[in-house]
């Protein structure tokens, strides 16, 4: 059975609103369905992250906590990886833009 729908009044940036309209038009679906799917996906991830952090706390409670230095070092490793991911994605997108411009020229 289809779940009953609720009405939410939300305020979003104009650029987000435009992106939602574009996505809905491209997929021939309603704006509500695009927003609902995006919200559901984000909320699912919030839940997974919270559960994952709780699970780590359980593990440390049973087996012992790492030192603050070790935790900080691992966090720094991960932050460096995140920076590298952002750099590569930016380079990839710049390359695609260059390609489009070259193709248009």
């Amino acid at each position, binding site marked *: 059975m289809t779940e009953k729908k609720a009405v939410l009044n939300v305020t979003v940036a104009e650029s987000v609103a435009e992106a939602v309209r574009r996505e809905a038009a491209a997929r021939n679906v309603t704006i509500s369905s695009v927003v609902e799917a995006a919200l559901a*996906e984000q909320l699912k991830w919030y839940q997974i992250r919270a559960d*994952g*952090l709780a699970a780590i706390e359980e593990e440390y409670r049973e087996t012992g906590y790492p030192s603050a230095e070790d935790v900080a070092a691992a966090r720094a490793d991960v932050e460096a*990886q995140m920076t*590298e991911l952002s750099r590569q994605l930016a380079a990839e997108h710049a390359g695609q833009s260059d390609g489009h411009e070259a193709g248009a020229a």
Partner: protein
Amino acid sequence: MNPVASGPADAPAVVYDSGVLIAISDGNPLAFRRHQGRLVSGYRIMVPAVVAAQVVRNPARQARLMRALRGCDIVPFSALHHVPVGRLLAAAGTADVVDAFVALLATAAQAAIVSTDPHDIGHLLSCLGVRLPVFPM
């Protein structure tokens, strides 16, 4: 539309291969602390269900692994995936379905890959025409 789900656009994402999960399961403290760091930093961690299946053997005796998996989005291999995975394997001249799915998932999500086998994954990514970072465990 890409048949492999991509997830929230604003969260940096990472896909684990089996080597990471094996390290966590074997009690490698660095692998577990980095997993913690990714969750704290807001990475969306994705694990193909087939990757998890390569490592899970006895959940009751793999508490650390099962706890790590609670922080991961387990992505199923569905009827949408056999064709793109098969095409990628044909293009790459390889036969590892799991690695191909890891590469496709990372591409769709614009995600980094954490892998103990960066050469094979890198080859698959190059066959897809994408450059994504492949990090060691």
